[in-house]
């Protein structure tokens, strides 16, 4: 079993404004992209963030071999509960998914 981070070129997470987090999975090739799209379901990603799958927006971008997932931030950026102002570390959580 591989980790997503081992087969993808890059897994990136960033804020999309103070209220949203967006995760970009750069797969590199159509083969890896197909494998990633099948394995990385919105339900699995929602579970990582303890979020409702219904709030996860999913964009499959075959021309770029990118799977993009956007969801409301686990806590609003910069609130007392927030642990990562720029949201970039959430990528590690996604990269550690088994695929």
């Amino acid at each position, binding site marked *: 079993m591989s980790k997503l981070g081992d087969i993808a070129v890059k897994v990136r997470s960033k804020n999309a404004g103070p209220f949203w987090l967006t995760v970009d999975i750069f797969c590199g090739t159509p083969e890896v992209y197909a494998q990633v799209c099948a394995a990385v379901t919105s339900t699995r990603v929602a579970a990582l963030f303890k979020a409702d799958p219904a709030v996860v927006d999913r964009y499959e971008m075959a021309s770029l071999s990118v799977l993009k997932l956007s969801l409301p931030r686990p806590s609003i*950026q910069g609130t007392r509960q927030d642990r990562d102002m720029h949201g970039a570390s959430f990528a590690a959580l996604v990269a550690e998914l088994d695929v």
Partner: protein
Amino acid sequence: MVKVLIPSGALGLGYDRAALARGIAQNPDIIAIDGGSTDSGPHYLGTGTSKYARGSTKAEWRELMEARAEAGVPLIIGTAGTCGADSAVDWLVDITREIAAEAGMKVKLAVLKSGQRPDALSDALGQGKITPLNPAPEISDDVLSSCSNIVALAGAEQIQAALDTGADIVIAGRTTDTAIISALPLAKGCHAGGAWHGAKIGECGALATTAPNSGTILIEFDAEGFTITPMGAEARATPHTVSAHMLYENSNPDVLYEPGGHLDVSRSHYTALDDRTVRVTGSEWIVSDRYTVKLEGARLAGFQTVSLVTVRDPRYVENIRAWCDDIVTKATAKAEARVGDGFEIELRLIGLDATLGGLDTAAKAGTEVGVLGMVTAPTEALSREVAKVLNPYLLHHPLTEEEEMPTFAFPFSPPEVSRGAVYEFCLNHVLELDDPMDAFALRVEELGA
């Protein structure tokens, strides 16, 4: 055709001087640079201050003012002073006056302010003109009046009004990142979808190229689309770097909402003109029924004092969570007995799960753990008081009653540091306007006259 020169993704980030000079040699029609974003957190809007130091900002801004004078075209900055609050605009205006005086420059300056009055917004809320975006915190008159700063994000229309004054320099408060780039091409009749798409691709400077640190790019807008050319010697724009940039810090890669409509790039075509220049056509701009501007607000969320202790004893590292839970319980009880409630003590375990907290699925301790103590309270005095109650626990708390009193490592004396006031974002809403200028204030001043 309209050529927009973008020196870098933000004033204060720095840029390649040679690339900027090459850009000026291309005879741009305007130089546009972003001055901020929300990405550094609510402190800047909460306090109405800039993230970047005054000296560095002045040095970079002076170079851009000189480049502008050489090119003889307008220079515009949006979201001045990181947050675009009125006080941050005043800060940059003050720097601009200083530079003009020192350099003997004659400058016509237009100042566009985006600050909102809570009472005016309360009226708009009552009239149903404020609509929540998803997800939006609950708002009320009380929330609006509790904000230390509220700004509205200006779009192309307000920037065009500022440019229409004939200004040499426009300093704008909060704007969308794209509006400062799209405004002139739109005013000159360039393709609307191309204007907004090119603006989105350009708003982070050279980030949409193979050499993100080279900063400067030139975007040429025309009747069908736009062409992006990096000015850095080594930088290349490719269909991949350009199309992939729509992903960046954008929740929906095909759509970008702006005042007055939205951009749809799902049918855009990306063509390499050579190995470093990309042309984009087919982008669409869809006009909305209502003209709305997004609101951002920040308010005080308390006062915080932080402490840091590092724990190296293997038995304590192994039992670090139990140790911290016990400290929080005991220190909270002691502080409540002494000063009453209303505060919160949190300990974050650096080296274990400080970054992801309860979401971490791979947390395991190494040889040491840093314990970050965070005390948040309604007043600065209370947050300091409680942090001082916490202090002896972080220094000496034993895992069991039977053992000799341990001592942990404080890197500093005193171990607690006041962070002062802390702020939170509390608006994710749009405001409907009858006229785009209704929520904005524009004035002109002559410098060095």
